[in-house]
């Protein structure tokens, strides 16, 4: 018997897979970016099904609010004739399809190999348990992930400095 949460999961999984296929197959890159938004939204729904509230919202904020917008901006900055008229896949696309299929079959084989141990169901959230403050404690407390927290900021700094330097180095032109 299939219950409500399974229906929601299957719907969002369908959305994810269909739009992911569109992302890798449509010719118009703006459409590809918009399909990416729909994929990412589906992933956010999966997080909500998993009761990871913070990640569900952060997924929308970071991916849809920033990364998808970046992609659209980047597409707009490049020339249109490179985007929609010509063939969008390279000569090796058959091999790529084969490899992707092999990877999927291998992954599915591994997953099914674990058998019943992967059929475990989510435990109920304990009463009064607040995942947000637990996440905060884990992320910043000295016993938790304080170092990765700081390293993330250094990573973001490096990304900002590097990409600004690369993108707009006017002096060399």
């Amino acid at each position: 018997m299939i219950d409500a949460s399974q229906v929601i999961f299957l719907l969002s999984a369908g959305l994810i897979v269909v739009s992911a296929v569109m992302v890798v197959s449509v010719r118009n890159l703006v459409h590809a970016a918009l399909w990416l938004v729909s994929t990412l939204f589906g992933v956010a729904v999966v997080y909500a099904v998993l009761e990871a509230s913070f990640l569900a919202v952060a997924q929308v904020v970071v991916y849809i609010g920033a990364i998808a917008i970046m992609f659209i901006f980047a597409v707009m900055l490049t020339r249109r004739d490179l985007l929609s008229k010509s063939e969008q896949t390279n000569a090796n696309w058959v091999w790529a399809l084969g490899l992707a299929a092999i990877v999927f079959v291998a992954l599915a084989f591994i997953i099914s190999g674990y058998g019943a141990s992967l059929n475990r169901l989510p435990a109920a959230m304990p009463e009064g348990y607040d995942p947000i403050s637990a996440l905060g404690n884990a992320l910043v407390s000295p016993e938790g992930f304080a170092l990765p927290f700081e390293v993330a900021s250094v990573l973001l700094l490096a990304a900002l400095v590097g990409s600004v330097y690369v993108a707009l180095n006017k002096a060399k032109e």
Partner: protein
Amino acid sequence: MNFWTDPIKVLYDWLMSLFGGWGMAEPLANTLVTLLGIVVLITIALVLDIFLVWIERKVVARFQGRLGPNRVGPFGIFQPFPDIIKLVIKEDITPDGADKVVFNIAPVLSAGSVIILWAVLPIASRIYGVDLNVAALYIIAAGALGTLSVIMAGWSSNNKYALLGAFRQVAAMISFEIPMVAMLLVPTILVGSMSLNAITQAQVDGVWFFWLSPLGSLIFAISAIAELGRSPFDLNEGESEIVSGYHIEYSGMKFGWFYAGELLHAFTFGGFMAIFFFGGWHGPWAEEYPLLGAFYFVLKALFGYWVIMWVKYTVPRIRIDHMLAFNWKFLTPLSFALLIVTATVHVLMRDAAFWLYVAAMFTSNLLLGWLTVEILRSYTREKREAVPSAAHH
């Protein structure tokens, strides 16, 4: 417990017993009542939206020494209804070369991104959609959908003004999102929760956060106005330059949704202003009588909305380079400085007496504001003195 102390619960029980009387199973009845509640909440928001059109037109008329709508109904209050009928029966034009699907989704997404904010809005002590524990970030997420709708509208119209307007609007929205998020972090630090209900409750039990962070409320107001794309930050729709921006090709009800969404957005942000800094529904007897709390909330939100209109019809539009420079070189560093100061004072003073804590917060805000003004003053003095000498050479 009666209707006046907990109206939602009374209505819920009444509907449940009514549906139960019809022989409906309990989960089904529960779902149905929830759906009904959602539809009613959204309908209230949209009815309010209709009257916002009237308020906006009446207020702008007063600002400009005119009468405004005064024919349909007393004081022209029913003017929005003919407006809506006109919008619905107008021919809907889709320009050549438009991307039809994206073109049609954009206005729906634009209005929807505002409507979904009402799911987390605590209208009164026991009147709210849902108490989400990540509500502060949820607001930003809804704003992200709004940004996306702008770029979709601009791109799909196949019009260069629309695309230019969309780019400007998106640049403004994403830029001013940063100080806004930083200011959402201030109440989050003060309360230790992102839930809007918890934030309101903390102000009911303590003081309004305006007294803890006056500078924060000011920054939030400025960035909210920019986020709404209202004057002085309405360069996306500079009529004289890019003929009203990203929704230029829209007509009929599709344009109507952009317009309605903008007004409701402004009102909703007035509400957020109230929730984050002015105590939400807090007021005399509001806790016992939720309907009174709802009244206070709407009043405060309308006040916030009025301030937004006041700014809109007073301050002239500024240039996009000035606007972005204002954000990145002034507002963003200032808001993060304020965030650091707030966090520091909060942690160091959390064990002190309450009045001392409030005083320290208030003073540190004023100090930071004064410091900022001083830095700006010396900086502009340098500039002023540099100009004539440069001209001399």
